[in-house]
């Protein structure tokens, strides 16, 4: 669904590249975490998928199409196939929940009756039934993020990109959001989520792609936030190799953040 071939992105000639010759494939229907420290290139990756920026070299394929070959007047069509949510929700403060979600349909010319039918359905999917007429400031952070997710998926995109969607939320609320994203993924949408929330990653046990300074240093299936295998500093696909045997770690649902860290440290010491 998303394929990067030796993609490099240089914003500033003097600085190191934001992405450095990344090769990566995310299949249709997959759920992948993009993890790594701030500045490691997660957002840049997502922006390239959206054609918000152009790769300096290499090719980005979305749904089989090289985005470099999409002419500017057809970029909107590419974006209709991709939903996006952000850490800061980006809701329109003067519009109700219903209107915020409907906005995404209005601007691409959907008819009033289709909007009337679809929006409540999507709001139900994200667990916001009965809150259609609230304004964003009358909602909790988690509820606001649910509105943003509803808006991102209301046009039924094949891909959902989430850039630190739980960055502003407490752990319990974050897990609720993850439930929604998981449900959307179950319905067949490919989900790519950039995050540095270790609890969530550990809890979900999905594919994890770790970036560091613009390089993929790990790509594991059903993985944890921090690698349980020695980092060998390569950008090849490692997940098939590592995915077969479960990493020797804490059982997923038990770990709190502190415990997970402790375990990881212990594991690390063990290996050292």
């Amino acid at each position, binding site marked *: 669904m998303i394929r990067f071939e030796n993609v490099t992105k240089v914003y500033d000639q003097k600085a190191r590249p934001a992405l450095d010759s990344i090769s990566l494939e995310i299949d249709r229907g997959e759920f992948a975490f993009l993890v790594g420290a701030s500045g490691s290139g997660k957002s840049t990756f997502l922006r390239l998928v959206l054609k918000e920026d152009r790769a300096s070299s290499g090719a980005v394929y979305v749904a089989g199409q090289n985005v470099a070959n999409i002419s500017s007047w057809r*970029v*909107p*069509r590419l974006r209709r196939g991709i939903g996006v949510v952000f850490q800061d929700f980006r809701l329109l403060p003067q519009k109700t929940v219903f209107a915020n979600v409907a906005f995404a349909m209005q601007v691409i010319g959907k008819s009033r009756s289709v909007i009337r039918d679809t929006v409540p359905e999507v709001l139900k999917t994200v667990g916001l039934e009965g809150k259609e007429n609230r304004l964003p400031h009358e909602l909790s952070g988690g509820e606001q993020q649910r509105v943003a997710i509803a808006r991102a998926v209301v046009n039924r995109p094949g891909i959902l990109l989430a850039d630190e969607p739980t960055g502003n939320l407490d752990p319990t609320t974050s897990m609720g959001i993850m439930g929604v994203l998981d449900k959307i993924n179950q319905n067949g949408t490919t989900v790519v989520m950039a995050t540095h929330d270790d609890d969530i990653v550990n809890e979900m046990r999905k594919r994890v792609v770790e970036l560091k300074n613009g390089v993929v240093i790990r790509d594991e299936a059903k993985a944890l936030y921090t690698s349980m295998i020695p980092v060998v500093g390569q950008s090849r696909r490692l997940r098939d190799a590592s995915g077969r045997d479960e990493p020797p770690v804490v059982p997923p649902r038990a770990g709190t953040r502190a415990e997970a860290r402790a375990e990881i440290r212990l594991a690390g010491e063990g290996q050292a």
Partner: protein
Amino acid sequence: MRLAFVLSEIGSGLRRNLAMVISVILVTFVSLTFVGAAGMLQLQINQMKGYWYDKVQVAIFLCSDGSTAPGCATGPATPEQEDSLRKLLQSPAVAQYVNDFEYESKDDAYKHFKEQFSNSPIVDSVTPDQLPASFRINMKDPEKYEIISETFSSQAGVETVIDQRQLLERLFSAMNAASLVAVSIAGVMIICAILLIATTIRLSAFSRRRETGIMRLVGASKMVIQLPFILEGVIAAVIGAALASGTLWAVAHFFLGEVMSKQYPDTAFISPGQTLILAPALIGLGVVLAGISSLLTLRRYLRV
């Protein structure tokens, strides 16, 4: 749906930027009024030129009923006198200075008079008898007016010989200079208008960056995103152009029609209706101004 959406976006944009929109309206109004004033001066010049101005330089007016000139002692010019004047015009001595000449009968004169003074009350009080017949002469060299004047002034049946150009040329050059000043001021004002419209669109795009950001992300087309901003500028410019057109009409109606035409009853003024032919041009110019500014602005501030 999309149209309704675009319209509601325009409405909210205009309301949000009301002060800027009003200033755009006023600047286009003032600049287009200057453009229109130049246009009106040209229309007025055409009106004053009348039927003959561009065709001939010299007019030989023949005696009519009330003529008091010495050559008219025998009353109105007779057909014989007209014939001998025509022969004189065709004689080699005169013909070498003349390209062409035409005879204007009293009825022709009345017809042309009615056309030129169609906007003046004077037209009702004039009859064909009061207007002299004339020979209208197109000179090879307009400077040789004196020769015609000397030759014909003393002929029987001639009331007077007039060099039409000399009467009006000075006035027209003053009016042309005024047009030029108006166009220059208009040029400066138009630059103001373009910059102001560009600034307004930029502010508008800035104040709605949240909406347009979301529109981009969900895949709204460039047209849906940009059209509200373009139309905002266009609507403001068109309102300005309409106000300018209204002002020109009012000037023609109240100033020329009520004041000037009473003060100068023997001058032909343009009618208020004639100024309205400038309106489509002004509105078109307003649309072009707004279009240029939008193009300049949106390319930079509303990238898709």
